[in-house]
């Protein structure tokens, strides 16, 4: 172990170490001043953000191949830290007015961020599992944060049970892969495969089980069943964080494992993933139409978006196309994160106590009542649909490009047609806000407004001038890509 090893995980060390300090400090912060904990927690994340940016794109293999620091990891860590920061900003007033303010919120959340960040840097299947648990367990707690509210408890319980189930799939998959290749190191698996020394059937089953486990985390059909209930039951601020962070975390592992360790098996997993992606886009978007609750609608929308991101995986199946496809997925993840956090922030602004104000009908009249908020929600809805000039459109453009480049025209067709379907339910929110009369009650809190405004601005600016982000995503290569 050298100092370079620790340099590779410095951002995670900062967050984890600092959060443990906060854990202690929080004991001495009076109950009514938990805002201080939030601030401290945010400072830790910001410090890590700075380090990630300073180290951006530096490539290191650390801890004997356990940890890979590369552009891919750095980019995803940006995504995670941003969602963590916004997660804190959104929670700041929200958990207070919901009467669930406890200092632990601001310490549990950064731990989950650490898990996600570890996932992005994982170079070994064991680390993948470690990261998966580290990102999930805090989320189980957060989902139940509104206890004794039954919905919240149900959400936590469901998420925990199914999450544990999925984790066991991953572990079992890892075990089988180890059995087939005698190693858990991603690079070594690849070498074994290339040398033709792996036990074929065992390996395929193992890879399949890992796909199932991580597919659960990203909420891909048919492993998505938990999503609507968990998203609906969890406190909305948690859901916002979960919908972007946990999903991106799952993808961080999924792309890494399949592209770094299993590219040789591409012929086998490509068709499967194509079908999963197609089903995810289709079912997510169709089911979203039927929802009347905005949280459930956004849950299904997040399922659908998992499908769009997932399209990049088969598109990366051909080695020479992989870098572009990965960049596309990364860009899309960032676009989705920004837009979705904005949309959830608006949900928070309308949510009242006891889960009122969460029906789509409750948005009636928002256009007249809070014009600015409604315009921003419109921007988010258009971005999620993929209408220019928003970042959502650019993200779709980038991903579809990769899909067409690898001749998956059928998948691309499913993608665009389901985008069309999605327009229907996203527009319904816009219809409600502008075309139905109503008197919605809204919140206007500083950090909430700040988050909405920032997200809307980013959605538009990155939609019009995506160049810099393109460049960053384009250079965010995986170091192990063969």
């Amino acid at each position, binding site marked *: 172990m050298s100092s370079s090893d620790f340099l590779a995980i410095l951002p995670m060390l900062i967050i984890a170490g600092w959060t443990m300090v906060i854990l202690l400090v929080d004991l001495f912060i009076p109950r009514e001043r938990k805002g201080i904990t939030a601030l401290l927690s945010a400072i830790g994340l910001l410090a890590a953000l700075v380090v990630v940016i300073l180290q951006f794109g530096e490539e290191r293999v650390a801890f004997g191949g356990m940890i890979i620091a590369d552009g891919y990891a750095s980019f995803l860590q940006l995504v995670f830290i941003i969602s963590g920061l916004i997660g804190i900003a959104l929670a700041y007033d929200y958990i207070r007015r919901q009467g669930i303010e406890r200092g632990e919120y601001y310490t549990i959340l950064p731990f989950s961020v650490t898990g996600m960040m570890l996932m992005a840097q994982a170079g070994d299947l064991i680390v993948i599992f470690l990261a998966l648990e580290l990102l999930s367990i805090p989320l189980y707690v957060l989902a139940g944060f509104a206890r004794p509210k039954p919905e919240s408890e149900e959400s936590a319980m469901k998420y925990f049970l199914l999450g544990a189930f999925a984790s066991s799939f991953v572990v079992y998959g890892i075990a089988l892969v180890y059995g087939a290749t005698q190693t858990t190191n991603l690079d070594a698996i690849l070498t074994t495969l290339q040398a033709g020394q792996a036990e074929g059937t065992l390996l395929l089953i193992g890879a399949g089980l890992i796909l199932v486990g991580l597919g659960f985390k990203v909420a891909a059909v048919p492993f998505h069943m938990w999503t609507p209930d968990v998203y609906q039951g969890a406190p909305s601020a948690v859901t916002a964080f979960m919908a972007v962070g946990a999903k991106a975390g799952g993808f961080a592992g999924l792309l890494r494992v399949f592209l770094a360790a299993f590219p040789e098996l591409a012929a086998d997993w490509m068709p499967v993933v194509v079908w999963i992606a197609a089903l995810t886009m289709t079912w997510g978007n169709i089911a979203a139409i039927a929802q009347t609750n905005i949280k459930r609608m956004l849950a299904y929308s997040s399922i659908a978006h998992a499908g769009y991101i997932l399209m990049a995986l088969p598109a990366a199946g051909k080695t020479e196309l992989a870098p*572009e496809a990965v*960049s596309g997925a990364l860009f899309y993840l960032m676009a989705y994160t920004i837009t979705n956090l904005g949309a959830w922030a608006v949900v928070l602004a309308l949510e009242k106590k006891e889960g009122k104000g969460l029906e789509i009908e409750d948005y009636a009249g928002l*256009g*007249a009542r809070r*014009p600015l908020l409604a315009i921003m929600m419109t921007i988010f809805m*258009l971005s999620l649909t993929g*209408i*220019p*000039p928003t970042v959502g*459109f650019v993200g779709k*453009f*980038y991903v*579809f*490009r990769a899909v*067409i*480049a690898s001749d998956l*025209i059928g998948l*691309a*067709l499913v993608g*665009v*047609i389901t*985008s*069309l379907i999605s*327009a*229907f339910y996203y*527009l*319904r929110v*816009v*219809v409600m806000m*502008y*075309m139905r009369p109503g008197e919605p009650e809204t919140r206007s809190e500083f950090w909430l407004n700040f988050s909405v405004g920032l997200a809307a601005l980013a959605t538009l600016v990155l939609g019009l*001038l*995506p*160049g810099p982000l*393109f*460049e960053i995503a*384009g250079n965010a290569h995986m170091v192990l890509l063969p």
Partner: protein
Amino acid sequence: MTSLLSILNLVTFFPIVGVLIILFLPRNRHNAIRWTALIASVITFALSIKMLADFNINDPDLQMVQEVTWITVAGWDIKYHMGVDGLSLLLVLLTTLLTPISILSTWKAIEERVKEFMAFFLLLELGMVGVFLAQDLFLFYVFWEFTLVPMYFLIGIWGGPRRMYAAIKFFLYTMAGSILMLLAILWLGLNQGTFSIPELIQTGGIDPQLQIWLFLAFAAAFAIKVPMWPLHSWLPDAHVEAPTAGSVILAGVLLKMGTYGFLRFNIPMFPEASLKLAPWMALLAVIGILYGAAVSYAQRDVKKLVAYSSVSHLGFVMLGLFALNMQGIQGGILQMINHGLSTGALFLIVGFIYERRHTREMDDFGGLWKVMPVYAILTLIVTLSSMGLPGLNGFVGEFTILLGAFGSSPIGSRLYAGFAAAGVILAAIYMLYMFQKLFLGPLDKDENKGLKDLNWREIVILLPLLILIFWIGLYPKPFFELMGPSVQKVVDILQTAALAVH
């Protein structure tokens, strides 16, 4: 050459200035908002006249070109690339003319949320002008999709009773077509290595079989927009529910984005496919002409009648374009303008009477000539223009199109032109029927007896359209000269392709 304040940038983006000022005006200062929007759009029109003055009639290529790299991604150079040529010049002018006219027409009709209305209207203008000037596929697509958003709000917020249904239907229909176009655009970018439209046209060399697929993907977007039969069913809903100004822009400009798309993209980029598919396109066009006319005749609602007549008129435009010869295309372009003028005027006229009576049922009227003589005479002129009376603009366009279609070898048969000519007669029937129901006969409804004739504002709104209706009808030469060289260029591309096929 490329500069921020060049004329093309100004024409496209000047409406933004109006939007920004409007955003800072207090919500209840309706008149200030209206004047701001009107002045912004009039200045935009003046800028477009300057563009016309700078335009070199003899140059077939793009002029006043603006080209800056916008986004570089994965080896693609996506450019902010704008330019004007004979194919787009008149359409830009039509857009910048119809926008202030429409804004003026809302002076009394829009009383609620004036601020948003005007902001959306100016944004719509920006999008439309951008569509006609963009010379990069990505940029074009951005403008193309962007126009959806303000129009969706215009229909959805200020429309009639079924506005939500109409707005969503409009949005989904249009988007359905454009996503297929997006795939084709991506394919072109990947395989031809560029999004630049002139470059794509120049490079060519796409396998004829593939061209058919690409043609169809682009056609999906454009045919829905035109709309061509059988993809027209969004149009009557959107038109009937839209506020008057929205209908004027919808019929006057938005539909032309479809026909323009065929002319700018499908024909020059996929010439072999165009030649091969010309008979089919002509067939759909002719069905559209006859179907639109027949359905128009069956309407009892004046606005619906005018809406369906658009299907018929746009059928003529499509027939002309896919005659794929000089007369056909020139006639097609001119007919786009004509339809914008006549149908725009017709929607305004319907709007005037609706504001007075709050009904559009023909049975509620009759004998209006006696109480509203000025209105009746102006309506008569527009009606005659729309049905193609010699001496007015519609005749020139339709006649040229029919000439082109008769002499067209790609279409292959004169039958198409023959049936289309029957459409002209049908147009006369339904238009005159409408006129008779509204203005002739006894003035037997009490509600109609007190109707006031047009006021000055309303006459001023119609005047520019009437002047152009006569001008094009009596002396169309300058209009043909404007588009001539650019059309010739398209025809040359087609001839090269035809030689290659044989």
